[in-house]
Structure formats: structure tokens, C-alpha cells
């Protein structure tokens, strides 16, 4: 028994096209699973004097690419309720890395994801989603605004397009490989 699964996390702010990207490369229609998280209601649902915890249901969308008989790759889009997705440390376990989708109209929505993967040393690529039309910025301007480390690849993609999403995935796997000594086997 040596069936193995690996993951790619698709992160980014709300509405940046995560599920669209997952769906464009997955061999199955994206599936949704739900989880109930119990988290302290910090400030957001502030009920002064009540030490309460909120229960939030978060949905997780995912897709699958069968690599061969022994290996299957799952693509997990981080939950829509962005303020909770980082609780899912479990997503990062066994992950090749992450694609952080960037919407140039709302760059700040991608900051939490970039910060999360950077702090944990998890390989990631920034993928600027062209879904919304022409991008008015240059790569340099976006890199500056996102404070991207020069080693982090930045790719342009249209999350609706299979070939384009595929290139973002390829760029991530190559980036993850570049951080390993060639020929190593676990």
C-alpha cells in the first residue's frame, strides 16, 4: 500500500478566482466539503462582557488530478470566509506549495496569504488573475506593491483557462523543485 496524495493550496482573497482555477484544471467538477470552526470572536462580533466563541461553517472547494496509479494531486481552494482560512494549517501539510491568486484591483486581499506562506517557508507563486481584463500595472509595480521576495515567481493567468491555470501549477512545481537539491528522493 503506497498510494500517496499531494496537495496544492490555491489561496488569495475573496473573489480572486480560486474555485475557478481549481475547476479549470481538475479532472472532476470541484467538490465542496464543510467544516465547523470554533474560533474566539475577536472584535468582529463584539459582545462586550460576553466571553463567547463563534461557530462558523467554512466551505472548502477542491479538485483532483490523478498523476499515476500511486500518486494523486489535490487542489484545495482556501475557504471563502477569508478571515478563517489560516486556521486550516492542515491544508499546508503535505503540500507542494501554494498558488496565491492576485486581483490587481485589490492587492491587499492577497497579503495575508503571502505572509502566511512566507513565514512558514512554504513555496508559492503569485498568479495575477487576468480574469478582470487588462492589467494596468507592470510586473515590477506588482512585485513592489506585494513586497514579493525576488525568488518568488510571478505569473499572469486567466483562471478560467485550463492551459493558463496549468502554467501557474507548472511554475509552482518548478519553483518547489528549484529549492531542492537535484535528484533527492525522500
Amino acid at each position: 500500500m503506497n498510494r500517496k496524495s499531494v496537495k496544492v493550496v490555491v489561496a488569495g482573497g475573496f473573489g480572486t478566482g480560486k474555485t475557478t482555477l481549481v475547476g479549470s484544471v481538475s479532472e472532476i467538477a470541484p467538490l465542496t466539503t464543510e467544516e465547523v470552526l470554533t474560533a474566539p470572536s475577536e472584535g468582529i462580533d463584539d459582545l462586550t462582557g460576553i466571553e463567547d466563541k463563534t461557530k462558523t461553517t467554512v466551505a472548502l472547494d477542491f479538485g483532483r488530478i490523478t498523476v499515476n496509479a500511486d500518486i494523486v494531486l489535490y487542489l484545495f481552494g482556501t475557504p471563502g470566509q477569508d478571515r478563517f482560512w489560516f486556521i486550516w494549517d492542515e491544508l499546508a501539510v503535505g503540500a507542494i506549495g501554494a498558488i496565491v491568486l492576485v486581483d490587481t484591483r485589490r492587492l491587499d486581499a492577497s497579503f495575508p496569504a503571502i505572509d502566511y506562506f512566507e513565514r512558514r517557508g512554504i513555496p508559492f507563486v503569485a498568479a495575477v488573475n487576468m480574469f478582470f481584463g487588462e492589467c494596468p500595472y507592470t510586473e515590477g509595480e506588482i512585485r513592489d506593491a506585494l513586497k514579493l521576495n525576488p525568488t518568488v515567481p510571478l505569473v499572469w493567468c486567466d483562471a478560467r483557462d485550463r492551459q493558463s491555470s496549468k502554467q501557474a501549477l507548472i511554475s509552482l512545481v518548478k519553483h518547489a523543485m528549484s529549492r531542492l537539491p537535484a535528484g533527492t528522493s525522500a
Partner: protein
Amino acid sequence: MPDETWYGDDGEPGGRLVPLYMLVNGRTSPRNTSLNLATQVTALPVDTSALEPEYREILSCCGGWISVAELAAYLNTQLTVMKLLVDVLLERGFLALGDPAERTVADYRLLETILDRLQRL
């Protein structure tokens, strides 16, 4: 016996005859701590006729390898709950387990294999 149906207290449509906490024997976290949402499981060829229907339903989806997350999605069960049910089935010898997830993927050849597959997408 009065003709009453108890729909349980978990508010699920249609209700459950057996509350989930009884199905998992009060277990609140998996004993197999390597269980991850992407962990692969598959049914072992053993007699399932004595099993509760909830467990048989899971096993009926495990003819090939499948992840905990897919089971949760197909059977419309919360991920945490599915993990517990799978944990029980593993322990009772109804399921076999794939490789545990590594903290990070540091296997160059594995990545090469994946890259090759992606390029053919």
C-alpha cells in the same frame, strides 16, 4: 411502544437513528494522528454485514482509493466527523491507509513525476 421517530439532536434533515457520538463511541479526535483531509483510504475485502449503515455507506465509496475530503463531500458529512468515522473504520480493520502526508514535499523525483503529468494536461 409509542409510534414516534426520534430525529436526533444534530438537526440534520431526515435525522439519524443513531447519534454520531455513539457511532464513534464518544471519540472526539482521530487516534491516528496522521489522518489528513487528503489521506487516501480503500476498503479491505472483509464482511461488512454487521456494520452500521453509516459505515457501510462510507465503505461503498471506497472500492478504489479515495481521500477523506472526497468521502466527506460525496456523503455530505462534515470533514471532522468523516475523519472520526474513517478513523474507526481503520482501527476496526475495514479500511487500508495510504502513505501519511509528509510535513513538506521534499522528494525531487516525486515532483518531477508530477511536473511531467501537468505538462501533459
